[in-house]
């Protein structure tokens, strides 16, 4: 319950994440942060800056460049009484730790007949938009969301940046928390008493009646922008923020589409085999007879993300593409 003397404070998405980390470290001595350059460097994206000074090198642990070992060590530490937060710098590098995540973290509980819990949080940056080219710009959230045993969170708003970590730590399962690199500098206001948020449902970010725009993480700001543009053109779009990719809150999605009868899914992953495909398939399964038009997907072009600005922009879902897809779906294309 937010206290009545809470005030609204200006903050950035990065600061909200940092506040969440600090609070978690203060609240529970079992919590610690480990990863490459989280300490002395201050975090690749400066999220953990200052925490080493505050909590010391035992709890803010710089690791060697050994993704498999330190992610796996996080699993082991979680099995053995700690509450680790492991940071992997970028989702691309997480491929080096995927064996540990998929073959161990996701399986140990079920395969042992329920003997173990793995209260582990793995944070990683994801997404493109900073001209970092083909080896630093992937969006593989959908892959993680495919794996039973994992939970997958994609905060988009300041509230979620501030509040999802605490909920993830309270969860006895391995949770992957994706931070889109395009969000860190987003500014806004947040209640001074903002805290844990639920991590089991999607949110309606904008109510609307004519179509549902479904997105998550880094695509939320531009999807909302597209909705405003559409409104100016007389099209009333609802915007759903998935927030949690696994387990997926199908009910909220289906309810929205039952109402609007049309949907566009925005996903920064490559189109083929994207998470957007899953959303589309579920809607087709559960709201088939309510659909008035084919579901559309706005995804990244199927290329390794190029460095050059104009090419990177061309590869990624942009506001105009969302607007275009929406207009097509509501049947108002020129």
């Amino acid at each position, binding site marked *: 319950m937010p206290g009545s003397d809470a005030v609204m404070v200006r903050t950035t998405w990065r600061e909200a994440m940092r506040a969440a980390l600090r609070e978690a470290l203060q609240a529970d001595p079992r919590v610690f942060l480990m990863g490459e350059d989280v300490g002395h460097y201050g975090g690749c994206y400066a999220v953990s800056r200052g925490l080493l000074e505050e909590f010391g090198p035992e709890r803010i642990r710089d690791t060697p460049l050994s993704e498999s070992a330190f992610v*796996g060590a*996080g699993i082991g530490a979680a099995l053995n009484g700690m509450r680790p937060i492991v940071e992997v710098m970028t989702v691309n590098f997480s491929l080096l730790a995927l064996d540990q995540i998929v073959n161990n973290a996701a399986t140990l509980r079920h*395969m042992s*007949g329920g003997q173990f819990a*793995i209260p582990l949080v793995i944070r990683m940056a994801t997404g493109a938009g900073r001209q970092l080219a083909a080896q630093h710009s992937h969006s593989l959230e959908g892959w993680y969301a495919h794996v039973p045993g994992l939970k997958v969170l994609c905060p988009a708003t300041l509230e979620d940046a501030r509040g999802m970590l605490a909920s993830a730590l309270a969860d006895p399962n391995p949770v992957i928390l994706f931070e889109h690199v395009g969000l860190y500098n987003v500014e806004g206001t947040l209640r001074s008493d903002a805290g844990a948020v639920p991590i089991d449902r999607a949110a309606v970010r904008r109510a609307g009646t004519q179509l549902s725009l479904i997105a998550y993480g880094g695509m939320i700001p531009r999807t909302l922008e597209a909705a405003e543009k559409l409104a100016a053109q007389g099209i009333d779009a609802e915007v759903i923020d998935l927030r949690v990719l696994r387990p997926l809150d199908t009910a909220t999605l289906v309810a929205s589409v039952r109402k609007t009868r049309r949907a566009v899914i925005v996903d920064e992953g490559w189109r083929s085999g994207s998470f957007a495909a899953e959303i589309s398939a579920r809607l087709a399964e559960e709201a088939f007879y309510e659909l008035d038009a084919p579901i559309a997907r706005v995804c990244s072009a199927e290329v390794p993300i190029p460095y050059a600005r104009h090419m990177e922009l061309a590869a990624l879902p942009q506001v105009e593409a969302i607007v275009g897809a929406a207009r097509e779906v509501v049947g108002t294309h020129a």
Partner: protein
Amino acid sequence: MTAAPSLDDDLGRLRGMLRIRRFEERAAELYGAGKIRGFLHLCVGEEAVAVGVMRALTEDDAVVSTYREHGHALARGVPPDRIMAEMFGRAEGCCRGRGGSMHLFDASHRFFGGNAIVAGGMPLATGLALADKMLGRRAVTACLFGDGAVAEGEFHECMNLAALWRLPVLFLCENNLYAMGTALALTESQVDLCAKARSYDMPADRVDGMDVTAVERAALAAVATVRAGEGPRFLELATYRFRAHSMFDAELYREKREVERWKLRDPIAALSTLMKLGGALDDAGLSALESEVGAELDAAVAFAEAGTLEPVEDLTRDVYATEASDAR
């Protein structure tokens, strides 16, 4: 610190090894009879490692093993009936029948698997030890793996991390000279595996893995320094598997004569001969031991046979923990 286990319990060591040997032989039969399925990896010939190492640990210590882990589990104290039931795929198995031979787990014995990814248990072991260290516990994590695991990147990353952070892990490399069908000389440019450990500034020793007393002595010494906070250690245990890699292996890659030569060093025969020479064992004593072991094993098989199948409705149970189930 717990009292060091007695080094003059030869009968205990012999019993430990015999339990494993007979268990493995029975498992092979039961595989032939279709009672056990999947991949089955036996450790016949390597019993001295399991017994020597596990005797050096205390209850609070943790164990991380591989897919060739029946012996480790038995020596650690995981009940044979639960293991056998697991391999029968029964709900009474130590993992409700979900893990099978390659994935034995027993939280109550701090036995953290049973891992079927070569070297995949090493990061877990490193993390278990990290938690013990951060929580100020004086526990040791024993991490077992084969010679084949040494080539994996995870081996290297974990050796470095454990040494760098001086974590209480004891790395135990069961060098049986083959990774599946690939001889050590075909997988390592440097076949002295202790040299690898030393390159991380980690003390390392090579031990005769066919001599259970030597293994126990070396493990005790290593555990003591690890427990004392002196950082991780590495033991290479020179051993040999007498049987095929798994039940599918045609053993095209090694000579029968090599196997026979190693069988001359059978750790069970070696110890019982020594005991007989010293007057600590006679034929009657040995056959009493065999019946004791046989009875336990018969009971385990009967337990497994009588076991039930997990209800299919429970298929998705425990994919996730619920908050209530795991508040600890």
